[in-house]
């Protein structure tokens, strides 16, 4: 475990040096994120000039949810998205072999190898917006709510991770998986609103196949005290299942790759 911590730290170290060397790019990346989060918040504010609640969610609660939205995005885009993008390239070029020669878990290596440091801004901004929403709410956060939030947030990010890993594993069989990933990214937009807003089919999709919906809605519910125990249990169970499935599927993919590569 400690060893993997050290391995991860070496990944971070290498990446930080690289990204901070391009200071202008880094700063521009931050500016872009400010723009994106700002306009998304703006959208919420515009909606609330015409309404007092959005399907029962008050403005502070919606602001908090927007914060969670970017927290989840940050969590995924910081580590997993860039690593998986590179993984597909490795599979295509045949350089995945090098990863398989290493004396460490291939799943860990391919999931965390490449980090996009600038994406920390997503999470930081998400956190700030979440904080603003909570302040506006004015209620005290119970320790239970905070714990539930942390747990469900972790679950949400893990659920999205599992989905991405599963999609990326498909590249062992189908070369052009970027299309499938594009579908995922398209659905990501739907995470900006609570999923109870959507028609049944969309709600179901965002809770299961493309879990970005519950990854955002459930933690937001948790921290604003509107999460039910069933939801909480369902989230934990669902995430556990998806993680186990994704790991199994990955091993199946590897087995196929090591049987077939020429």
């Amino acid at each position, binding site marked *: 475990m400690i*060893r993997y911590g050290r391995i991860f730290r070496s990944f971070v170290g290498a990446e930080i*040096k690289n990204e901070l060397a391009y200071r202008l790019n880094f700063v521009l990346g931050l500016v872009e994120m400010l723009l994106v989060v700002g306009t998304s918040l703006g959208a919420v504010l515009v909606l609330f000039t015409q309404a007092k609640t959005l399907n029962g969610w008050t403005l502070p609660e919606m602001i908090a949810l927007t914060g969670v939205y970017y927290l989840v995005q940050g969590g995924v885009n910081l580590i997993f998205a860039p690593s998986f993008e590179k993984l597909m390239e490795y599979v295509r070029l045949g350089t995945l072999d090098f990863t398989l*020669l290493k*004396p*460490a878990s291939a799943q860990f290596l391919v999931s965390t190898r490449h980090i996009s440091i600038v994406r920390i801004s997503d999470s930081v901004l998400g956190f700030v917006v979440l904080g603003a929403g909570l302040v506006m709410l004015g209620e005290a956060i119970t320790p239970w709510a905070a714990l539930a939030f942390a747990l469900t947030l972790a679950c949400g990010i893990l659920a999205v991770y599992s989905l991405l890993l599963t999609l990326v594993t498909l590249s062992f069989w189908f070369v052009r998986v970027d299309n499938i990933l594009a579908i995922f990214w398209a659905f990501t937009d739907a995470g900006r609103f609570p999923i109870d807003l959507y028609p049944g089919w969309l709600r179901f999709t965002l809770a299961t196949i493309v879990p970005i919906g519950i990854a955002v809605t459930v933690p937001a519910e948790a921290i604003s005290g509107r999460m039910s125990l069933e939801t909480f249990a369902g989230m934990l169970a669902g995430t556990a299942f998806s993680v186990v499935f994704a790991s199994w599927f990955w091993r199946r993919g590897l087995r196929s790759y*090591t049987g*077939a590569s*020429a």
Partner: protein
Amino acid sequence: MSEAVVHVRGLEKIYKVHERETGVGATVRSFFKRTFKEVPAVGGIDLDIARSEVVGFLGPNGAGKTTTLKVLSGLLYPTGGEASVLGYTPWKREYAFLRRIALLMGNRTQLVWDIPAADSFLVLKQIYAISDHDFQTRLDELVDLLELAPLIHKPVRQLSLGERMKVEFAAGLLHGPEVVFLDEPTLGLDVSMQARIRSFVAELNRRTGATILLTSHYMDDIVALCKRVVVIHHGKILYDGALADLAERMAPYKVVGATLRDGASRADLERYGDVVSNDGAGRVKLRVPRAEAPARTARLVADLGDALADLSLEDPPIEDVIDRVFSGGQLEPAVG
């Protein structure tokens, strides 16, 4: 006597390749019923390699060299037979095994493009759990041997192909592997860089006693580094032994090079041997059976007298030998 570091018996690797036809009809059909073609890449190989040997795998494209290396390094699992490297079954990919081997592939880089090699080295240090002391010692040695000092702090992207290969080598050897698999290591490099890599590999074997398996297209690699060569063709071993013996068994002839003065007739040179080349300016090459080479050469000299300006007697070029092997030539029984 050293025990076999690499031990292979009856190794087989058959690929199932999905047959593909073009057209909508075929695509729809393949949705429901996939037809497979069996492509044998390796069809029954026996091999034993002792510690610190440097063995060359020779063979045309598709012969099964790379497949064999991949099986031995654990990247592929075979469809039949058994193999053990350092006592481990490679395709189980046990971490203890992976820590003791290395596979380097020519023209393919494991280093991250945008960051300096030195940073990648630090990552490798963690992945292989190399101690600070070992890491520093080996790094210094590799930097020295490969002249890497000006290279490792530049992003890999900015290095030339030759420089990149050198840095790749260092990266691949940082963990001090006991068995090193090299797949076409000098591919695409210019002549001087090829020579440098060759001398480095020889030095590596000398200093660390690492067992080295090397595949290459370039005969010069094999000739320079390997006393023992394994010839693979169509997934089977055609020859396994000393390179020098291969020439004798495979191409039992010598090449006589004669340079004739102006005006000398070349027509009757056929008497002495098969005329292989005639450049029109008086230089002729003859192929002469090895056993009769001294006698025929003497007769040539005597008969031509003054018309002969120059004479040479050489072993057949290694490329010819290999060509003969691959064009299905029979191996002559070993000459005593």
